[in-house]
């Protein structure tokens, strides 16, 4: 912990979160917990085929069933222009977004929505689905991204021309986009290398795996005003999407955020909301839709699988002189894999003079890839950090030292943008070397692996209001769903500025009508950007309270200071006045000008990038190929830990997800393009008995642009684990696993030498 910690009263403490009691007593309302009088139940008909043309849909029998109130298909939604919008508040191609929510002339993956029904009961809605007759012409499909790039591959979008090429191709293909980053001259650079490692890697699609399935309730009144209750990573994002996809004025939609049961990027975009809103408008009744776990797996998430080629070269002393990477990411049915992030994050932690990365965004007959925690970076890091381990071993340099020799520091130029600002990468590596786990002796079949990871971290638009109540408390209204303790961080920062007790601050997450626009809960931006808005709003309230005190004392506001929750005269010149507490000032608000509140709106700039370094010990069972995680140590530059427990929690949770990605998780398709494991039994996420305690090291290198130095922390921790585990397996058995997941059969095959 840093020395300046002492100046703070609340920052760095670990108080109970404001929403905690409701969450341990079952009172907290998550999205599926809302029910309304007169509510209809909605159900969704999904494609059984991976790729098919919809020749016709006959809904007449379903519509005629008693109790059915609405049946909708793609024809009930406006067709949107095929255009790319953004960057900015919305980004992407709404034609694709809309068609992913409900298919038009083709279905592009098993689970693709074809129609939806609202009825007076779930049983009737279910029966109605079975009465909808869809005439499909089944088409050849393609699941693998490399196969999808072949010249004779079945085309998902018959007119799609690759974007991003200097000379656009004349023929359509499944390659939605191509991109490249270049710095220096890698061809020349490699000539200087004494040692070169060149290797290919693959990863599989994995799901975010939030425990709460998607759910929504929507209600439209006779005047056309619609209210939507749902859990999401951004109520404003839901409002925008519903507005565009259903074709409604933004002002007619109010989105009320429910508590969210996990998202990890997968709840940044809506799936059910436009369907529920459309049906509630047709019926003027509330419509509730919940997804089954199977639907969650088949039709939401996952992140991309990828095929990558990495080449790195270094001189004998361990200086990396050149690096290249090719990244083929599968996007799922519509363009938009995180391959660009992969291109940028892959070599980002290292100061390499000559770098070239290039890649392809490839559509395949799978659900459209959604963001998953540091989207793109963990995939790329699996390849790059594995290659670096191999390089270190060839050079006979400790893998941590190789990274230290090449680590970026403040001022290092990046190959994709401006120079890096304040970064604490070196410190994360040095901290690992000092950790007791670094020197624990290993037994037979055990190995230790290291890897690092990078994430940009986000800023962006946020606003917040701080209301001062007459009993001396404060309410904070913010616009970002609390996905892992952010209300606690907001309350801590507000209490710190106001100078009152943490318990006297109650934060709420407002709906789209109670606060201006806020960007999503994602990109590790909330504690940074929304935190900044809360701090500024609290400062605004303090300014107002100083003015009120000045008025009561009849002195100039400049002659008032604010300290520990009291207004005080700034000095002797200001006159002798008893300090006024926040409560006293609030109590006299009526006579000094009315309610006291502070507000701030901002577009937060210059977030500090996040870097982390991990160390893992594994034991490989040579009989079964099973890999057991013995200990895990994650070290990260966290800027400033506002509530350290929730920072540790982000690190531990990200590591656990990364271990699942490394060892077990994958989307498995049969030859018809149907997902074979759409449930938790066969899509195996880590359980409690799979993991040890996860040790964390928080390095605090404050980010200059934030009043308290906050740095996003939520995404970096999922970046290093896959490579760290692969490198540990290599240390244990001397074999390098280059394809995820490193499941027992693959490890066993590697031991037997046929991998």
């Amino acid at each position, binding site marked *: 912990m840093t020395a300046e910690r002492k100046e703070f009263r609340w920052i760095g403490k670990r108080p109970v979160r404001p929403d905690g009691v409701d969450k*341990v007593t*079952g009172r907290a309302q998550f999205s599926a917990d809302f029910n309304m009088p007169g509510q209809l139940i909605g159900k969704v008909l999904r494609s059984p085929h991976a790729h098919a043309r919809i020749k016709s849909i006959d809904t007449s029998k379903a519509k005629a069933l008693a109790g059915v109130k609405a049946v909708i298909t793609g024809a009930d939604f406006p067709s949107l222009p095929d255009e790319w919008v953004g960057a900015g508040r919305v980004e992407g191609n709404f034609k694709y977004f809309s068609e992913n929510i409900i298919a038009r002339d083709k279905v592009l993956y098993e689970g693709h929505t074809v129609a939806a029904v609202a009825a007076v009961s779930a049983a009737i809605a279910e029966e109605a689905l079975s009465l909808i007759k869809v005439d499909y012409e089944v088409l050849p499909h393609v699941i693998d991204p490399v196969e999808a790039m072949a010249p004779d591959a079945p085309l998902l979008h018959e007119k799609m021309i690759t974007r991003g090429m200097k000379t656009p191709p004349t023929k359509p293909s499944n390659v939605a986009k191509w991109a490249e980053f270049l710095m220096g001259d890698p061809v020349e650079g490699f000539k200087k290398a004494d040692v070169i490692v060149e290797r290919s890697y693959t990863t599989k699609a994995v799901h975010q795996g*939030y*425990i709460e399935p998607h759910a929504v309730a929507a209600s439209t009144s006779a005047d056309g005003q619609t209210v939507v209750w749902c859990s999401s990573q951004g109520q404003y994002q839901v409002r925008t999407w519903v507005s565009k996809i259903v074709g409604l004025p933004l002002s007619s939609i109010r989105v009320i955020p429910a*508590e969210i*049961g996990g998202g990890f990027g997968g709840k940044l975009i809506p799936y059910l909301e436009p369907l529920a809103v459309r049906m509630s408008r047709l019926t003027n009744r509330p419509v509730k839709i*919940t997804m089954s776990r199977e639907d969650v797996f088949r039709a939401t998430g996952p992140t991309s699988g990828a095929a990558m080629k990495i080449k790195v070269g270094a001189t004998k002393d361990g200086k990396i002189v050149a690096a290249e990477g090719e990244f083929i990411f599968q996007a799922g049915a519509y363009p938009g894999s995180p391959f660009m992030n992969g291109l940028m994050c892959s070599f980002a932690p290292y100061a390499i003079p000559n770098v070239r990365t290039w890649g392809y965004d490839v559509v395949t007959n799978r659900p459209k890839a959604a963001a998953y925690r540091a989207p793109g970076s963990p995939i790329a890091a699996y390849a790059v950090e594995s290659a670096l381990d191999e390089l270190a071993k060839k050079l006979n340099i400790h893998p941590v030292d190789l990274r230290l020799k090449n680590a970026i520091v403040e001022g290092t130029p990046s190959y994709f943008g401006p120079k890096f600002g304040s970064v604490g990468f070196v410190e994360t590596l040095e901290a690992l070397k000092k950790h007791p786990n670094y020197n624990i002796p290993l037994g037979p079949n055990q190995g230790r692996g290291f890897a690092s990871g990078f994430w940009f971290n986000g800023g962006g638009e946020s606003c917040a209001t701080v209301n001062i109540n007459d009993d001396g408390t404060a309410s904070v209204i913010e616009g970002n769903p609390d996905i892992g303790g952010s209300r606690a961080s907001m309350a801590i920062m507000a209490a710190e500025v106001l100078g009152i007790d943490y318990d006297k601050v109650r934060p709420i997450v407002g709906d789209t009508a109670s606060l201006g626009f806020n960007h999503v809960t994602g990109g590790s931006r909330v504690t940074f950007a929304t935190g900044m808005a809360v701090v500024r709003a609290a400062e605004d309230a303090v300014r107002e309270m100083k003015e009120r005190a000045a008025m009561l004392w009849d002195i100039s506001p400049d002659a008032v200071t604010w300290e520990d929750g009291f207004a005080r005269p700034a000095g002797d010149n200001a006159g002798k006045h008893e300090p006024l507490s926040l409560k006293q000032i609030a109590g006299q608000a009526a006579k000094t000008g009315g309610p006291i509140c502070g507000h701030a709106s901002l577009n937060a700039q210059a977030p500090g990038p996040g870097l982390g370094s991990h160390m893992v010990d594994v034991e490989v069972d040579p009989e079964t190929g099973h890999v057991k995680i013995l200990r895990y140590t994650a070290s990260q530059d966290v800027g400033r830990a506002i509530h350290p427990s929730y920072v540790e929690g982000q690190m531990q949770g990200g590591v*656990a997800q990364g271990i699942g990605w490394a060892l077990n998780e994958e989307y498995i398709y049969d030859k018809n393009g149907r997902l074979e494991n759409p449930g938790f039994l066969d899509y195996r996420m880590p359980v409690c008995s799979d993991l040890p305690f996860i040790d964390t090291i928080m390095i605090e290198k404050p980010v200059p642009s934030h009043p308290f130095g906050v740095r996003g922390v939520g995404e970096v921790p999922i970046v290093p684990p896959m490579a760290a585990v692969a490198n540990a397996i290599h240390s244990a058995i001397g074999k390098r696993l280059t394809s995820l997941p490193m499941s027992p059969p693959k490890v066993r095959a590697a031991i037997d030498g046929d991998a």
Partner: protein
Amino acid sequence: MSKHHVTATINGEPTEFLCETSQSLLDVLRDELELTGSKEGCTSGDCGACSVMLDGRLVCSCLVLGVEASGRTVDTIEGMAQGADLHPLQRHFLEGAALQCGICTPGFLIAARALLERTPDPTETEIRYWLAGNLCRCTGYDKIVRAVMDAAAEMRGAR
């Protein structure tokens, strides 16, 4: 199709409800009795978010039929605190930040209480295997295991 009339003791209170033959206990709790603290993560017995006690035994309420509760006792998360007095497990989950999103929390609390009732002094390994039927995607389980250990120690009077 006529519904069944079922009487059961839920969180200590005599309760009556009507349910269909195929309705799970989880659906009855959530949809008929408005006890939405038990969560649905899968309906296949794989996530433990729906954990409740049925006659003192830990079950996944998604795998039990509503009619099976007839004449039996059901204890859900809503009955865990005594008024404003939280159960030590609830308190330690809060103090130890053992929840992030909180969707898995009711299930973990019910399962952990069942463990501590039979094993007041569990080892870390016992806790990990007992809770292996409850999925949490947010925490990596670290703080959950610690919170259970801390609550167990407090309940034994060890601190």
